[in-house]
């Protein structure tokens, strides 16, 4: 068998084994006798109900409407501030302390505070996501912009670039791989933040459904919610990586 076929067949098989074992354990009654893990059949019927009344899509879109603008705002803000603090030492000395203190906090610990300060609105939940994304992107962009290989800056001087040309042609592209890596971390954090935000203050969304399932102690609804949230985060990451590979083909092998 070819390597490429193996590389997806084996992971699929591993998932099938897991689901099969879960199903069998449910059929044999092992799960309900000895644990609170819901049998697969119960989870499936919970999922079917969620899909049937169209509620799932409302929750999905509610979450996406917070996650996507939050990621974009946080990433753009982090990239811009990071390039500025990475290049302008005085600005960094001025804003650095506040940013570093805030960054050192566990992101989720700030959510209840932010919800009170900004109120329980859509804008506040987007802000919470954006803040979660901002910090990893900021620190990555800051490091990247601050460590642009001097050999490329020499090229800029040799070719008599203006300062703006130097930014556009050397500093920004050289910082891009750092921003891309920071954003990948940011996307993972975005889902944590939207989940916490919705858990505490929302009436729609995947995180909200999980909080409801928690209140009524319905483990099958929790498993469906977790599966949905996990798949969404996984899909976002996969789409992101594919998009980056298509848009920035020079990144993979730039040092090869």
């Amino acid at each position, binding site marked *: 068998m070819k390597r490429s076929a193996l590389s997806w067949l084996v992971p699929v098989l591993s998932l099938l084994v897991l689901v099969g074992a879960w199903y069998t354990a449910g059929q044999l009654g092992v799960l309900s006798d000895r644990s609170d893990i819901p049998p697969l059949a119960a989870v499936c019927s919970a999922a079917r109900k969620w899909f049937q009344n169209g509620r799932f899509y409302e929750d999905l879109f509610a979450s996406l409407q917070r996650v996507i603008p939050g990621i974009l705002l946080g990433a753009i803000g982090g990239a811009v501030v990071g390039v500025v603090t990475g290049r302008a030492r005085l600005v960094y000395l001025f804003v650095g302390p506040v940013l570093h203190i805030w960054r050192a906090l566990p992101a989720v610990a700030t959510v209840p505070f932010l919800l009170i300060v900004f109120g329980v609105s859509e804008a506040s939940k987007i802000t919470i996501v954006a803040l979660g994304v901002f910090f990893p992107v900021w620190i990555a962009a800051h490091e990247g912009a601050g460590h642009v290989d001097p050999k490329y800056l020499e*090229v800029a001087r040799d070719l008599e670039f203006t300062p703006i040309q130097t930014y556009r042609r*050397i500093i920004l*592209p050289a910082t891009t791989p750092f921003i891309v890596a920071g954003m990948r971390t940011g996307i993972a954090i975005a889902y944590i933040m939207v989940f916490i935000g919705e858990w505490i203050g929302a009436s729609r969304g995947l995180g909200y459904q999980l909080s409801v399932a928690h209140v009524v102690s319905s483990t099958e609804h929790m498993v469906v919610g977790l599966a949905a949230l996990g798949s969404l985060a996984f899909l976002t990451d996969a789409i992101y990586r594919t998009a980056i590979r298509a848009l920035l083909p020079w990144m993979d092998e730039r040092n090869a």
Partner: protein
Amino acid sequence: MPEESNRALAIHLEGVTVSYGGVEILRSVSLDVLEGQLVAIVGKSGSGKTTLLKAINKLLHCSGTVDVEGRARMVFQEDRLLPWFKVRSNIAIAMSGQRGATNGQTSVGRERAAELLSEFGMSNLADRYPHQLSGGERQRVAIARAFAARPDVVLMDEPFGALDVLTRESMQEWLLAFWRHHRAAIVFVTHDVEEGLVLADRLAVLRDGELLTPTVVPFDRPRDPALRFSGAFLTARQEVRSMLAGGRDSA
């Protein structure tokens, strides 16, 4: 060469000294290069060749006089193509530094890039990224970039140093053919004595930061590749070698 007397100076160096942390890397270097002339600087590793070119290109601080007429461009020791641009843009960006254009995609830059690539027989490489090229191809793109803005002075830092002997020799011939149509004063740095003799009008030895008086390379142009095997060439090579070794060979 008799016509040299009425040619203008492209580069004038006098008493150029560069020090790092109190150590003098270049000691009072003086050199005149005429317009359209090719001067080779030959020196061992660490003798200060790269430092000298950077001083001429004003990429580092030095004391003494550095006068360069017109626009200077450098071909760096490693190619230094920008990994995030395709070959076409890597050449095109060299065009816009001068005229305040905003990006490498200006039509002037693109046209010039296309022109140079077709002249180099590399049009098929225009849409590749630098990491998709061989070492020799990368070096030729770097040379195209250096010549794109029609500079008056080109500083070349061991451009063929990383290539195998046969490729290096064909690149030397190619450079001479190209230079015939794109006259610029060239300072060509190399550690390879033969390379210096094959290419240059004049050759100067750089030894531990001191530039010895340049000597005229007495071979007519265009130069036959078989020149390397002639007696006069071998004699000249031996002379330069003994200068490199600090005169110890001839003692």
